[in-house]
């Protein structure tokens, strides 16, 4: 179970106490999102298929588990996987969107411009990234129950969209999932659970400081054919391959 450690002021506490007596408000994604710092765990169960590859291991059945951190503001979304010492950042600056892959152990960043992402068919779905689920999918799910979880109004939702079965517990005030489960027709399942959430202003865990990292433009990877770092990480990048035949 997750543990929430807000350090709210007196006014916020009073509001929360009042809110706990109130009905759960409806889903509303058309509001400015609260800046948050959160920690999640994701488990992926791969049903196994002799004709498929998954993370370089063809046909293996099993569960992979990883804990990761998440920071969300209006202009920046960052994810960090401490165990892998890697992370991802989406930045919004006016009409421009930048995406970065962070390699903390190497103190290097690979940065993508909008056109790179277009060419690689990487969708720039800012809303999906900050909500962690496609808002159109979320709005198609059926509300099964209403709840209050540690002072937060929550909706339990479920349903199938495009052949994927969803189960979601949604914290309405934070617009963040407390539980997000997806399963496809082959039995592959991905479950993400919230472990901890704080307001960004009171976050106890800060984003890794990447200000001194070397930034490598994605477009330059092809000209760094002898760079040991580039050779090592090429296949972890969008557009790369996990070919094992």
């Amino acid at each position: 179970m997750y543990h929430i450690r807000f350090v709210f002021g007196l006014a916020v506490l009073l509001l929360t106490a009042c809110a706990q007596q109130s009905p759960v408000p409806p889903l509303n994604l058309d509001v400015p999102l609260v800046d948050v710092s959160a920690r999640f765990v994701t488990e992926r169960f791969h049903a196994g298929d002799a004709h498929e590859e998954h993370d370089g291991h063809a046909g293996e059945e099993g569960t992979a588990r990883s804990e990761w951190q998440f920071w969300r503001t209006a202009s920046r979304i960052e994810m960090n996987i401490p165990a892998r010492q890697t992370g991802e950042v989406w930045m919004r600056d006016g009409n421009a969107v930048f995406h970065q892959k962070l390699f903390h152990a190497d103190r290097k960043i690979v940065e993508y411009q909008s056109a790179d992402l277009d060419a690689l068919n990487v969708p720039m779905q800012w809303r999906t990234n900050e909500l962690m689920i496609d808002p159109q999918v979320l709005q198609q799910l059926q509300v099964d129950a209403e709840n209050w979880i540690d002072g937060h109004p929550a909706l339990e939702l479920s349903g199938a969209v495009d052949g994927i079965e969803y189960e979601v517990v949604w914290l309405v005030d934070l617009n963040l999932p407390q539980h997000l489960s997806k399963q496809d027709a082959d039995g592959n399942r991905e479950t993400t659970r919230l472990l901890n959430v704080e307001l960004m202003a009171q976050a106890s865990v800060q984003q890794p400081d990447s200000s001194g990292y070397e930034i490598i433009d994605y477009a330059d990877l092809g000209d760094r054919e002898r760079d040991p770092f580039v050779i090592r990480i090429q296949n972890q990048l969008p557009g790369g391959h996990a070919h094992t035949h």
Partner: protein
Amino acid sequence: MFTQLKQRKSPLAAAIGLLLLAGNVNAQDAVPASAEEWFKHGKQTVKAAEKLKHNERKARNVILFVGDGMGVSTVTAARILEGQLREADGEFNRLSFEKFPYMAHSVTASANQQTSDSAPTATAMVAGIKTNDGAISVDQTINRTEPSADVTAAKSVKTIMEQAEERGLSTGVVSTARITHATPAVNYAHISNRDWENNTNLPAGATVKDIAAQLIDFPYGNGIEVVLGGGRSNFMTNQSVDPEYPTRKGSRTDGRELTQEWVSQPKSAYVWDQAGFDAIDPSSTDRLLGLFERSHMKYEADRADDTAGEPSLADMTKKAIEMLQKNKKGYYLMVEAGRIDHAHHAGNAHRALTDTIALSEAVKMAQEMTNDKDTLIVVTADHSHVFTLAGYPSRGNPILGKAAINGVELKDSLGLPYTTLGYANGPGFIGEGTRKVFNPLTEGYVAAEYVGTKSRPDLSGIDTTDPNYLQEAAVPMGSETHAGEDVAIYAAGPKAHLFHGTQEQHVIYHVMSQALGFSGSHWGW
């Protein structure tokens, strides 16, 4: 070798020439529709070639255009696309520089590479020698990561830009890539590692200056007059907020604000957006630095989407010539279409070809602004890419589409359609379950789902003319690679006829140098 005759002339001479050659031009432009017309066309082409006269004059100006990664297959595909975009016969179409009278093959192997990167190939073009991978205008004896300024100086080779400045000519460098990227950098910098673009890239204890600093500290003549391109962050400190993207800052940690240093000189200007660029009056500005992106400038296909606006390669070429031609002694200018290479690396033919067409427009602009009696224009590539045109599509079949005869799609041995354009390696579709897709939630990269059950994707329902379509690649690689075959050299103007046959790439420098009347060598002979 030569292509169709079309030389630049003064307006009067051009008008007379057009009158004289009217019949010929018409014949050249119209697509032959019968055996007789094809035969006649061939004969007229030879007749025009017979009128070619070598221009033995000394060049006052030299403009070197480089299409980074613009192999012959890229030129052919771009020629077809440019024609088809105008609803003309793409196969009969010619890009502006393909109409130049002289051509040669350029052997691009570097001193230590069969298939080269841009640093030694560009060095060959502007310094007259072959060198090793990653080397920026230093010779092949240097260590790839040489940190010493003294050692680097001892192994440096003087470039044509430096020699031009020494002789009182004006100089400029224009690129759609970062202006500190390998191809533009070879003109003004000397360094063993092309990646040392700002001071944070240098190894600890290095005394050699980074590439951006070398541009600003350029010691020859009265300095470079025109610098236009991308790479703004390499010229700003990490305390300076980027003017176009306020959430971003510069890269330098040595406290040097290089753009400020540039404008500290008299009659110097620095611009970073379209409005600033447009406001520059060449008659009252002697030195212009334009840095239009933090990193590379936009692809031509995406330029309209830029927040602050960016000039096209043709716009930048025009402004550069307007400034440089103020010097009656003449000028040297390099113009690079730097992103043809990047689009190919990404496996994206559309952007590679549209950037090639943008280069053609820039060359056309230069032709219109100069006279081939005194200006040598050279158009070439530093290296090729593993890009190909395949199958047996009908003449007129959309070049970005699927190979088809009279609209009926051709099929491979699996019974699946395929595109005319493709890559030997790279990030494009390759086979069942092998392409990774991006999953931002989990850091995982999962196998793409293919429609169909064959070992190639079924493209029947795919619009391969979409600008974001990645052409298929045979060998899966995160980034498509350069290719080692020769590239073409197209030339017009004084001494252009010295390009002939299959020549080593460093001969380009020697023809330009000969045309400008530069004698002697770095070594004193």
